[in-house]
């Protein structure tokens, strides 16, 4: 059996297991909420997880593209970067998929999967994990930029009010996330 076929046939079941593994890393009450509330505006975290994981699985099934992976990972990682997770926990959920897929292979009779096919998939999952780490760092750096610029602006404005800055043509020090990163 091709790994692509397995992912397509068992899509819903794999997705559910993967989603549950991510949701269950939260405390019980939160995990229950993430799994049951379907409204995307009442449950943005659960919604980001559902649509992100679903898209990622599709990408893995057909051969992942870097840009698509980034687009799918970003909303999930962006949330986890401000929640109570260590960096490894924030990106680690991606690797849960490896064990889930191996369990499916082992538990389905006649599911003989070529090792190189499986290795290809696992390499893509690993690559997604590395991309997730890039995104995580990007999010954290964005937070620090926001903090730093807030302080710079505060100081600059205080100087301006005190008449210590004589040539301010703008109301900020001119630093934005885009031109310092």
């Amino acid at each position, binding site marked *: 059996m091709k790994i692509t076929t397995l992912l397509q046939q068992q899509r819903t079941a794999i997705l559910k297991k993967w989603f549950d593994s991510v949701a*269950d890393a939260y405390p019980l*009450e939160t995990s229950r909420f993430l799994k049951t*509330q379907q409204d995307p505006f009442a449950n943005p*975290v659960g919604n980001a997880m559902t649509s992100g994981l679903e898209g990622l699985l599709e990408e893995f099934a057909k051969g992942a593209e870097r840009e698509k992976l980034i687009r799918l990972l970003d909303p999930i990682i962006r949330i986890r970067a401000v929640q109570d997770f260590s960096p490894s926990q924030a990106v680690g959920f991606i690797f849960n998929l490896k064990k889930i897929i191996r369990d499916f292979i082992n538990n389905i009779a006649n599911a003989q999967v070529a090792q190189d096919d499986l290795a290809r998939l696992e390499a893509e999952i690993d690559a997604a994990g590395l991309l997730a780490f890039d995104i995580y760092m990007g999010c954290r750096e964005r937070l620090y930029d926001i903090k730093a610029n807030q302080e710079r602006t505060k100081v600059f404005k205080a100087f301006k*009010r005190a008449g210590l800055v004589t040539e301010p043509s703008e*109301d900020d020090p001119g630093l934005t996330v885009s031109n310092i990163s």
Partner: protein
Amino acid sequence: MADLPKAAELIKIDHKPKAKGWMETPVNIRPGMYCYAANPKSLDYMGFPNVREWNPLDQDWKLPNNWKEILFEGIRERLGRFRSFKIFMDICVRCGACADKCHFFIGTGDPKNMPVLRAELLRSVYRNDFTMAGKILGKIAGARPMTLDVLKEWWYYFFQCTECRRCSVFCPYGIDTAEITIMGRELLNLLGLNIDWIATPVANCFRMGNHLGIQPHAFKDMLDFFEDDIEELTGLRMGVQYNKKGADILFITPSGDVFADPGTYTCMGYMMLFYYLKQEYGLDVTWSTYASEGGNFGFFTSHETMKRLNAKMYAEAKRLGVKWILGGECGHMWRVITQYMDTMNGPADFLEVPKNPITGTVFENARSTKMVHISEFTADLIRHKKLRLDPSRNDNLKVTFHDSCNPSRGMGLLDEPRYVIQNVCNNFCDMPPNTIRENTFCCGSGSGLNAGENMEQRMAGGLPRANAVKYVQEKHGVNMLATICAVDRAALPDLMKYWVPGVAVTGLHELVANALILPGEKERETDLRQEPLPGMEDGTDE
């Protein structure tokens, strides 16, 4: 393959939370999720007790020896004074209707941010000390004794609530969970446990009239800068009046509008509106350099502090002998005015029932407080066709509206801001229904939490709001988020930078002033931000 150690064993990452009850789950005070402790000088200035330096991350919070006694007495006294507090302690049946409605719970995933559970932090101690069932049955009755860990938990979570009251919209018993946070913070203040982003603005406001401690001449200097900018834009000077005795109306706005972008553009908007009304209808509006703050961080501190700060606005109105007070685009100021002022410092009998002299409209809702929200005022002017407007000047904007928690849930101001936007802009769309109006999601930075050191907390708390903005950005191309609260104007730009890049933030009266055709103005080439107006993009390049 079978001999390989599992990855999780190698690096010992524990993804599973320990399955324990909430009472057994100890508080973990995480940097990024709390604001720095109050500056002792600020607390001392206001006469708060138990002033000292302390650090939330230290084991020892340097509490007074009798701190438990102080808290017990504090709760006992407040149960007697505030019937609402006693009722809210007793009647919750823990149905869970509020549980998933809090933006902090949704964003952080921390169950202790479920409003019901946050309230249980206090209720459990109340049951233990003040109810027979709790005294006899203890934990079975949901009671637990006060300990240092419990106190730390109170502090951590009562400062992870923005008192936005979204949860109370869903409570079948009408429990106002914000009032429990308010009471929790008031009790913490008895032990000197405030945060600096609240305590220092409170002290500044009490001493100097505004949160930043800006002196009257500096306040005037800032408005003079805006005069220069407006003159460059329109060729006209607005002639702002200060502390004018006998003016028709005293205008009070949050100082954030005077000192923080993008609120400064909203402030310029007020100035331009008042100029228009003076020229066209002779309306006499004065600003005050003493009552130079609409915001009231006393509301986040204690009832007494709220009352002390609120009183200055009315004292100034009395001193100047104005007819009534017009209030700017502020958030919690309006909850203080609408729900507390009247029994706290009111009724303001020395003022007249607010009547718009231009349209004849009497603002019945402000009959007792004598204070009118500028959105109502402007909506009334537009409704009576008293303003000449060119909404096409805002055609580069696709606007959505964030209902600020306090004006929407605290005073029912839902339609007026939308009416104004739709008359000064041609492109407006609302966010999804369960994220606006009385269901609005908080910006995540209200009630004194708009500091820098708690950025993770603010971003997590603001996620549900940002998520809805992102939806209208993707679906309708929205690029401007309008709001009528100074904290929103300060907080939402950071929130947008993190979650929804490409969406800027504006106050309502910035949009109004862009569209407003001032008598005698020169042809405008830019908007208030000095960006070219639609159709003027080429002209500014030369």
